[in-house]
């Protein structure tokens, strides 16, 4: 109960008066010489003593009376919103109601038994109810194609439902400013008495990174006298562990070798996630599982060592179900080869002792028992190479390239997808490969770190700098600790190519390993020697694993990728001229385009909107190959706005968030209803008075 004149309530203290008087009277005891004691005693003996409780009842009635009267004079009333159960409040006169419907992918997150988007659609339908002549209802989706749906009564329920159901989720980010602009136009052109703007969204933080841009439109809308309602369809405690990305670092693996599959998971929620599991499956069978924990906002890279047999594998990574299932799994197609062809190019150098060439260490390492099964190794000296067609990777150390025909051949080789691993040769110096490295690897070689190598001074490889997937195991010290190798000297360089990327650094920050794409091929440059002249890496345990990974890295350009991102064109070399068909993850069937380049044929496919596994089949339905499309969307971030952004939005729209349908109805209700209680209380006072009078006469 509330009161319009609260000052009168003080008079309620008069209700204490009967109590005080009663207590005072009871405290006073007078003595009286009595002349009718006989009658008094007879009465006391014969009659039942009055029960005190009757006094208390009368006292209570007498105390309640002034209190009730004081309350009556204080103008009491009950607040009630009187929310209508049928539709949302309509307001006075005719109505223009614009609904901005968030159809970004974050709305796919679960909301109770349904999804946020389903809830938003349902509310949109509800908001359409109760329309009358002169009203106008508009629905504007926030993402995807720019469209405005206008409904003017009379309109059928089914038609509205069909239209609203035609609005689907879109992978693109929301365009709030554009939507507000469209909404403003609707309000400017309307002549209705009441105007309402309702935004149905999860108000995820990623959508409002530039909330300041909304201010001009929000101001305009307010100046037009529009009532703004921000309805948030999200649970503050929603949790989402997202499988952001996964991969080996290459789609081509070598049989018999253990590769690390890295799955990057991110906690897009405001609370820690514990006891979650990542599953690795192939054909529905769990190959491995890994348990993990993530703090709010933490991103972690989970490593799963995998060794696969030869052939084409489709493996799946899956996270446990959570509020947003769209980003919980990833599929990878990997091709596991039985052998890899490595060509080591070297130049013989006469030495009294030691190895003959700088690439001797690499040769010895790869020729070891384990490697010989996996690698077909050829060694050539000098600048002549007969054929590199079947070679996957060429390793160069201590060979002059600049100004030679070899350099040109290698450039062509790399451009067509070949892999090149180049180590710096202290004996040959910078001039032997400067120009070639600049062209192929995008690096500008400078001067040696030390003019004179001092074996008492050395750097080490900063293992944490190895973040490329194929090299991440060195950061984790999985097989060996690469940082134990001593780097006595190295060539300093500057990364100039746009495609060049530093894969590792020395402890002084200088690039140690640089990779660059050139055409279809990959070039890797090692800034120290591949011999023991400038470092002790070649004799460390980490050398061989490093060479494996460098070879795998360099060979990744040899064939076209089997795992692409959404929107990319899938291209794959194929062997036949058969008609091929592609089935998308959402079940659509397309005919693939086959193009020919000389003796080679390539399959191209552009409809890669849907993330998931695609199947390429021939006319008879035989599987030819698979490939996967992953999503690089930040819709996984379903976390709410920060409190500052929230406050900013609410101030801009002069509104507050509602989170349930009931709250939205109440917010839209104009004012509040008051039920006056004065009459009731006055009547109560009269009743009390009559009751007191009657009881006193009856009992006393």
């Amino acid at each position: 109960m509330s009161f319009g004149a609260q000052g009168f309530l003080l008079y309620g203290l008069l209700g204490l008066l009967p109590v005080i008087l009663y207590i005072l009277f009871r405290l006073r005891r007078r003595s009286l010489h009595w002349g009718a004691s006989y009658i008094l005693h007879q009465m006391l003996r014969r009659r039942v003593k009055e029960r005190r409780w009757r006094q208390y009842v009368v006292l209570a009635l007498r105390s309640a009376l002034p209190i009730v009267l004081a309350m009556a004079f204080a103008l009491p009333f009950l607040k009630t919103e009187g929310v209508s159960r049928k539709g949302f409040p309509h307001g006075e006169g005719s109505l223009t109601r614009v609904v901005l419907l968030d159809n970004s992918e974050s709305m796919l997150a679960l909301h109770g038994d349904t999804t946020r988007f389903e809830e938003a659609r349902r509310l949109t339908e509800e908001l359409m109810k109760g329309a009358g002549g002169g009203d106008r209802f508009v629905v504007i989706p926030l993402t995807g194609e720019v469209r405005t749906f206008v409904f003017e009564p009379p309109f059928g329920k089914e038609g509205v439902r069909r239209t609203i159901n035609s609005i689907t989720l879109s992978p693109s980010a929301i365009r709030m400013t554009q939507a507000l602009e469209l909404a403003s136009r609707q309000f400017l052109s309307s002549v209705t008495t009441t105007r309402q703007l309702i935004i149905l969204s999860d108000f995820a933080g990623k959508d409002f990174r530039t909330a300041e841009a909304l201010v001009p439109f929000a101001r305009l809308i307010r100046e037009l006298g529009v009532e703004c309602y921000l309805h948030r369809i999200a649970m503050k405690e929603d949790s989402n562990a997202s499988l952001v990305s996964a991969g080996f670092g290459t789609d081509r693996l070598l049989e018999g070798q253990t590769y690390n599959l890295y799955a990057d998971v991110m906690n897009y929620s405001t609370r820690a996630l514990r006891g979650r599991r990542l599953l690795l499956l192939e054909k529905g069978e769990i190959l491995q599982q890994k348990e993990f924990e993530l703090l709010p906002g933490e991103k972690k890279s989970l490593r799963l060592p995998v060794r696969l047999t030869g052939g084409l594998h489709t493996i799946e990574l899956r996270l446990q179900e959570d509020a947003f299932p769209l980003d919980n799994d990833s599929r990878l197609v990997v091709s596991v080869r039985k052998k890899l062809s490595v060509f080591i190019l070297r130049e013989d150098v006469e030495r009294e002792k030691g190895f003959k060439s700088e690439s001797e260490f690499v040769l010895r390492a790869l020729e070891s028992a384990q490697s010989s099964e996996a690698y077909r190794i050829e060694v050539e000296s000098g600048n002549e190479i007969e054929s590199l067609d079947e070679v996957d990777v060429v390793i160069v150390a201590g060979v002059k390239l600049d100004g030679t025909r070899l350099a040109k051949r290698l450039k062509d080789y790399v451009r067509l997808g070949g892999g090149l691993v180049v180590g710096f040769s202290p004996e040959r110096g910078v001039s032997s490969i400067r120009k070639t490295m600049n062209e192929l690897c995008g690096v500008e070689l400078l001067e040696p770190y030390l003019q004179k190598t001092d074996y008492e001074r050395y750097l080490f490889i900063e293992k944490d700098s190895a973040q490329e997937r194929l090299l991440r195991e060195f950061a984790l010290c999985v097989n060996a600790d690469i940082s134990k190798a001593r780097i006595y000297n190295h060539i300093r360089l500057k990364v100039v190519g746009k495609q060049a990327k530093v894969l590792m650094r020395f402890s002084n920050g200088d690039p140690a390993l640089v990779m660059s794409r050139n055409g279809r091929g990959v070039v890797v440059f090692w800034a120290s020697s591949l011999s023991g002249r400038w470092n002790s890496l070649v004799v460390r345990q980490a050398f061989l694993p490093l060479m494996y990974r460098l070879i795998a890295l360099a060979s990744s350009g040899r064939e076209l990728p089997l795992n692409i991102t959404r929107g990319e064109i899938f291209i794959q070399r194929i062997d036949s001229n058969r008609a091929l068909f592609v089935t998308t993850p959402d079940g659509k069937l397309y005919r693939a385009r086959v193009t020919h380049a000389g003796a080679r044929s390539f399959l191209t496919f552009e409809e890669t909107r849907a993330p998931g596994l695609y199947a390429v089949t021939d006319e008879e339905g035989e599987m030819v190959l698979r490939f996967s499309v992953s999503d690089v969307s930040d819709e996984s971030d379903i976390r709410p706005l920060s409190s500052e952004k929230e406050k900013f939005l609410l101030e801009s729209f002069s509104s507050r968030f509602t989170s349930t349908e009931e709250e939205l109805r109440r917010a839209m209700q104009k004012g509040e209803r008051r039920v006056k209680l004065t009459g009731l209380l006055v009547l109560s006072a009269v009743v009390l008075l009559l009751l007191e009078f009657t009881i006193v006469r009856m009992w006393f």
Partner: protein
Amino acid sequence: MSPQRPSDILPAEVLEKVRKLELFSRLRVESYLSGENRSKRTGFSTDFVSHRPYLPGDDLRRVDWRAYARTDRFVVKQFEELTSFELTLVLDVSNSMAFGDELTKHSYVVRCCAIVLFLAYLQRDSFSLYFFDDRLTGRTAKGGGYEHLLRCLGELVSAEPSGRTSFERSFGELEREIRRSGLLFVFSDCMDEPATIAGALAPFRMKGTDVVLFGVYHPAEKELPYNDVTRFICLESGRITVVDPLEVERRYREEFIEHHRALKAQMVKHGMDYCELEVSGSYEEALGEYLLRRMELYG
């Protein structure tokens, strides 16, 4: 100080009012003097009672010649013999009669008794005065005349309430002193069992005495008009009873009414009269009212 005249006790206007009243006994009494009260014997008076046959020696002036003319028989008229009566006034002087503020029950009944005595004097009736509490505590001998009146008034004025009440014992004693029937007026607050009171007075009635009991009470004794918790100290026994009047007032009033009703019932049952007198300023009116009513009913 003894009153020198009735006006020392009763105001002149009251005395004037009293002159208009009559005291008489409902019952015929024996008396030595011829007054205005019916006697049990027939004699000379103006009130014809009955005829009897003429006997030789009867006074020929008493022969009813009209009856002879009608019946041709000689008959003699008989007339009632009016006699005066003896008034016995009994006053309760127990301590409970001292209750009251400005006008106590005792002072009230003293005035009432003065009126009655004065009335008896005016009618030339003989009267006597007794005081009692738990026994007879004072008396004046039977007599008449002005001097006797003054003497009785003096006794009235000097009497002080004290002691407890016992009707049984007091009137037992009184019974031995009053041998002739007459009129017995008792003024008391009747703080005893109704049956006991009536039982104590009944023997007088059985002897032919017209008994009137005046139950005197103070208004506060009836209403119990107190709000505070009160220590009621019995005037007679000194016993203290702590009572919250608010809790018991209704029941008390009922008890009070019941007591007087029972008392009246007992008195009527024994052929006696009972009158309630509330202590108030107009004592002469209350008493006068009763006597007038009595006159109307039985006069």
